[in-house]
Structures are given as C-alpha cells and as structure tokens.
C-alpha cells in the first residue's frame, strides 16, 4: 500500500461513524433507569453536541495544516515527543480495552457459554494485526462493506421488531432528574473517541469538509435514537432483565417464523470491534512511529492482550478499563485539551516555518 496516497476524508468519517455506532451496539444498560425515552433523546443530542465540541481542535488543525495532530505536535514541540507518544499510546490501549472487554463479555454470556474470553480476544487481536499492517486506507475501505452490512443488519433488526411495537409499554413523557441527565449524557459522550482517532489519523485524508463531521455525528445520533426507541417500545421492561440490550433487540426481532437476527448482530459487533481495534493499533503505532510496522504493532497487541487478561480476571482492573467517566475524561484530554494547547500556545516562528515546509511537501 502506498503510504503517500491520500484517501477520501468522507470515507474516513464514514468509518469513524461506524466506530461511534458500536458504542450503542455494545450497550450494557449503562443508562439511568429513571430516564424516559424522550429524556434520553435529549441526552443523546447533548452528548453528541459535546462530541462535536471535542472534535473542534482536531478540525482546526486539519483545516489549517492538512496534517494530523501527532505530526503537528512532533514538528512544533520535538522535545515533548516522548510524553505525547506515551500519553496517546496509553489512551489508545485504554480505548481498545474499553471495547474489547464488553465484547468478549457479551460473547461469552450470549453466544458461547464455555468459551475462554482471552482466547477469543487473542484471535481477534491477531486478525487486527493483519488489518493494522495494511493501514488506515485499507481499513476505511473495509468500512464501506461494513456500512452496507450495518444497513442490512439494522433493517433486519428494526424491521423484525416492528411487529412487537407496543406504545403502551412506555411513555413519551419527559421524566428524569439532573443526575440522570449527567449520567446519560456522559454515556453518550463516549463516541468522542472518534475525535481522537480523527486527530491522529486524518493526515492521510484529502478533501476534508467540516460538514462531514457534523453528518457523521448526526447519523450516529439517529442510530442511537432508533436503538433506544425500539428497546423502549418493542422490548419494554424485558430489556431491563438482561444485559446487552441491543443484542436482546436482535434476538427478539423476527419475521414470521424466521428469527436468528442475533447472528447478524454478532457479525456486526465483531466486525465493528475488529475495525475499532485495528484503527487503534494504527493510531498507536502512528503515535510512536510515523509509519506502521509489524514489530510495533505486535508489541502493542501483546500489551493489549495482557491488559485484557488482567481485565478479565481482575474485577478492579475491569472496573477501571470499562468506566465511562474515566474514559470520557481521558478522551476529553486527548481530543481537546492537548490539541487546543497546540493551537493556542507554542506559536513559535521556527515551528510554524517547519510546519509550513511539511504542509507544502
């Protein structure tokens, strides 16, 4: 794959949108039970608005320099190269675990009850190594197929649930307090990790427009709203009896006697997690080296696997790695605080010159 080749920014944002959608796909009823559907819609809107705010520094850097944040940081502050690399490496490993742990947990609880989660994680990570070596461009191409498959799965999942719709199961009333608002909004800010991915990997894209980000977040919001709507009005209280509500939705969906839509859900969840982790590996190698190479990717995969093993067998580690609040704070620092510092501070003339030279080249 030619590393010099720049690919469409539209496709990159489509891939990031699919990554953002996987948050609701692996939803484990982290939402406040007191909040109504309408209340949650407001939380979705607020959460995604915050996501957009977190996107702004990366958008500014991309628009000004047409480079990714990591390159800009390396040029502007060569001395801070190592701290920045360490911070982002830790962040990407944390994010990858944030998705990998619920995925293997869901997998064990819902599909193969006897499975060893670590081995499932190991196999998944090995395939991710292959994708990460191929690069971001190829992963975004994969995103196109995943998008088509996600459309099909959503049509089946929502279409199959239409027969069970019952508006008497829940109300459209606006119920929920301020703590519920904070808790749920925080949950809907988790897709902001795509802002960090965008900041770190957007250097390889061309024809970027701000509206692409807006559309990606709007579509993510629509997906969230649809999933919540069907969980509320097709599953009703049944949704609260088990974990992984989107899985339940796909399991309950059926067309006449034809069911088994959860197999589509499994495929979509697997491929989404595969794509997220592959992108994370690309980003993590980008934060350490400019171009991805097998050795670096393997080192990070080993670290990821070790973290996963700890998370699986040590509950305290799992609590930290899947904690939404920690994740959102971490994301806010990675997406907004550090890049903003580079936008507002460090406007040294020699750094700008160097940056200008790179941009021109």
């Amino acid at each position, binding site marked *: 794959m030619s590393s010099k080749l720049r690919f*469409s920014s539209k496709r990159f944002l489509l891939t990031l949108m699919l990554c953002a959608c996987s948050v609701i796909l692996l939803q484990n009823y982290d939402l406040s039970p007191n909040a109504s559907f309408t209340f949650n819609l407001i939380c979705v809107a607020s959460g995604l608005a915050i996501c957009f705010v977190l996107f702004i520094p990366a958008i500014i850097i991309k628009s000004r320099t047409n480079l990714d944040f990591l390159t800009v940081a390396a040029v502007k502050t060569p001395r801070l190269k190592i701290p920045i690399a360490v911070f982002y490496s830790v962040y990407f490993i944390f994010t990858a675990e944030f998705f990998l742990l619920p995925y293997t947990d869901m997998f064990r609880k819902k599909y193969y009850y006897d499975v060893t989660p670590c081995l*499932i994680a190991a196999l998944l990570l090995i395939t991710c190594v*292959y994708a990460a070596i191929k690069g971001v461009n190829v*992963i975004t*191409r994969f995103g*196109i*197929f995943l998008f088509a498959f996600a459309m099909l799965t959503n049509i089946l999942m929502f279409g199959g649930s239409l027969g069970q719709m019952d508006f008497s199961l829940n109300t459209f009333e606006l119920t929920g307090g301020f703590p519920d608002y904070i808790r749920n909004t925080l949950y809907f800010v988790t897709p902001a990790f795509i802002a960090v991915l965008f900041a770190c990997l957007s250097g390889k894209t061309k024809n970027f427009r701000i509206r692409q980000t807006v559309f990606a977040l709007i579509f993510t919001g629509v997906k969230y709203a649809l999933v919540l709507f069907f969980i509320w009005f097709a599953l009703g209280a049944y949704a609260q009896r088990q974990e992984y509500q989107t899985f339940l939705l796909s399991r309950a969906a059926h067309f006449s*006697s034809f069911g088994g839509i959860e*197999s589509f859900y499994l495929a979509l969840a*697997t491929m989404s997690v595969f794509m997220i982790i592959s992108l994370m590996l690309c980003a993590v190698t980008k934060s350490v080296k400019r171009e991805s190479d097998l050795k670096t990717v393997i080192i990070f995969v080993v670290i990821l696997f070790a973290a996963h093993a700890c998370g699986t067998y040590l509950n305290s580690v799992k609590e930290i790695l899947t904690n939404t609040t920690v994740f959102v704070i971490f994301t806010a620092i990675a997406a907004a605080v550090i890049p903003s510092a580079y936008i507002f501070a460090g406007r040294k003339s020699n750094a700008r010159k160097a940056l200008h030279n790179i941009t021109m080249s």
Partner: protein
Amino acid sequence: MNNSLSEILSELKADFRNSADLTIRDFTLKSKNNIKAALITIEGMCDKEQLAQSAINPIMSYDFGALDGEEAADKALSSVLASSDVTVFYTKAELITFITSGFAALLIDGAEKMFAIGVQGYSFRGVAEPESEVVQRGSREGFTEPLRVNMSLIRRRVKNPDLVFEQATVGSGSRTQLMLCYLQSRVSQKLLIKLRKRLKECDLDTVLASGYLSEYLEDKSSSRLFSGVGISERPDTVCGKLTEGRIAIIVDGSPAVIIVPRLFVEEFQGVDDYSNRTYYAAFIRVTKYLSFFLAVYLPGLYVALAQFHPEYFPTTILIKTSESLAQTPLPVTLEVLAITFVYEIMKEAGLRIPKSLGHAVSIVGALVIGESAVNAGIISSSTLMVVATAAICGYVTSPLYPPVTMLRFIYIIIGGIFGLWGIVLATAVMIISMCSKTSLGVPYMSSLAPFSLRTMRDVFVRADWKTLSKRIIRVQRFAETEVDE
C-alpha cells in the same frame, strides 16, 4: 551478414545441432558472377506452394546479369520477390527468430542484408467459439493459437490507427513472442511503463501459455488468492477492455489473452449483459453476486449453524436436517468436507476423461455417489444438497472458481471449529486482503472500495447504453490509482 554464406549456413547448422527440421535450399542465381544464395525454412512451418510462387520461382528465373551480391540483393527486394511481406534484417539472432516463426529466410552470398519472406503456413486450430466463455448473443469467434491471427481478430473490431501492437519477447529458452495491445490515446503511460518493466523482469526460461506470465504481472505486496490479471478468449471482450484504457497481452501459442488491470467487479460482467435489456442484465448481475456469496459461504454457514447454532434453522428445516444428520456416521464438518472433496475429484475426472466416457462418469457420480450414498445413510441428503448448490453457484462466476473453491474449504473448516464467529472474522480478514490488493496500481476492489458512484453504473446494474456511452471511464481514472495521469 558479414561472413560468407557458407560460413553462415554452417554456423546455423551448428546452432540447430543439425536438427532434421532445418531445411536449407542452396542454389546459384542466374548471373555472370554465379552468386550463391540459400532459402532457409523450418520444415512444416511454411506454405511450400506460396514459397515457390513468391520466392523460389521468381528468384531462380530472374537474370541478375553482372550484379554483385549486394546489388543482387537490392534487385531481389525491389523487383524479384513476389511477396507482400518481406522484411530486411541483418543479424543471425534475427534470422533464427524469423525462421522459427515460420518465415522463409533468403540469404545471398556477398550481401549484408537478409530477407524474411512471410510465407507462414503451419497448421493451426481455426477460429472457433471459446468453450469457457459461451454467450447467447454476440460473436462466435474466439482467439486461437497463432499470434498474427489473434492480432487480426482484434484489428478487425477496432479499425482505428490508435490501436497499437507492441512486440516483445519473453522466455530466455523459448523466446516466446508476445504483443502488448492498447489504444494509444486511452492507455495510461505510467501503466504501460509499469507493465513493460514487469515483463522485462520476467526471468522465465519457457513460456508456453499466457498463464505463465500472470504471476509476474501481479503486484508484489498484494494477496494472491484473487487474480489481478484477467484472461479472456473472446476478441470482443478484449476490445471492450481496450477502450477502457486497459492493456491486452497476446502470447504466441496461447488462445488466452491477458488483460490488465483486472478488477473484482469485472468478474461479474459478461458480454451478454451488454446485449440484453438493462433490467435483465441487472437481474443477472445480482444473481451472479448472490451465487458467488452462496458458493463461498453456504457450506461453511451450514456447518457453523449445524455445529453451534441449530436454533437458527427454521423449525421444519431443523427437524429434517437433524433427522438426516443423525443417521450418518461422520460429524457434519467432516461430512461436508468429504463431499466437497469428492465433488472436486469428480470435476477433475470429468475434465480429463475422454468425452465418450464422460457419460458413464456422470452416471456413476449422480447415482452411485449421490443417490446410493444417501439411501445407504452414508451421507445426509441435506448436506448433499448444500454442497451441490454451492458447487453449481461456483460456476456462475467461472473466472473466480479457484479462489471460490479455496475459500469454501477454508470456511467449512473455520465454521466447523469456530462457528459463525470464526466465519465473520475470516470474512473480515478476506475483505481487508481484497481491499489491500492492487492490480498494476489500480485498487482491485475499485468501484466498491474505494467507492465511486459514477462507476457504479456498470457494477450491480448495467445502465442503458445512452448513459454508458456518454463517458467511457478509463481504468486510470478510478479513485486512488497509482497510474493516474
């Protein structure tokens, strides 16, 4: 020719190790200087009658008077040789190339130049419809073995001086001739340079068929499961591809013409699509994609569901499948693998067996292995049906048969070990591998990934001719190609 005629002839004989098919007819021209001359041919490669009429008779009856060797050669070229195809050459290497290609070489003692007279007359298979690419409507002509005949089949369809045939030779031992064929105004120069370089790097000793070259034309880092090199035996298909900026390589002695670059979506396009009504062409296209999917996944999914998720089968199918599988001795994965493998054996036998015995083999296959094995409870009817459906679907997109067969086996094994999850993960890897593949710098999955709406008019559907003819999309114009200009 710096040496004397006798020296050249003895060198030639030595080069050919006194081979029996090297025919040297030496004679003396009617002249005052008694100039010696020789006609060199390879036995069986020249039309003797044509040779007599165009060369032997005129040159032996012509009176060259007091001319010396060089002047006699000039005279022979300008006034004596009665052939439309005479090429002048000067070296022994060229001499060998010409005579081994079926030309007759005329050598005159004392003359520096030599003549190659186009009197090729070897026997070859006539132009016939290719069996592997049969069409309902469209030309019944297919390529044959001789290079020149194949060139004429293309030239007859593209009567445009823009069409270029560029000669090259590959194979240090066989010295096989090949022709690069392209439309000068449409082809990407970068692509052409890349292709010439690849051919130059080809270090084969013998090239007996176009397939030998395919591997050398593939991009190095690309996955080799799917081929980035197209093959066609139809001149109309090749001409169609040339108009899109592609390059055809005609290899002497092979009816299969190479077309590069080759994209995945092309495997689903057929000549008939462009003759049929658009709605029907679209239906056929969708059928082909569905068949490809079934051919690759059906046995694997069947195994995965039967092993891990029987509840996904609809109730009636589940009852019948479980009853029929319960009576067979092998586990479902092994059973599917075994039947698929037996089918491949039968297919190979069917291809190699003499036609007169083919009928007997099909009876044995259908009755003995099929019906009797099911009745005896050795294999289950549902498994047989799944494997047979996948096998038939595999032939709908016949150029993809090799990767489809391999993937089928892979998915059966993965489905049997890891179930549906394994198949999903393997699919992700396969898609990544296909998306990273390039064919001479053009992304193999172009039109789909990278997605391009304007090229989608000829992917899942075939737009009407008014739309298609508005702008021909050249291959270098696909997104993210390395041969864009």
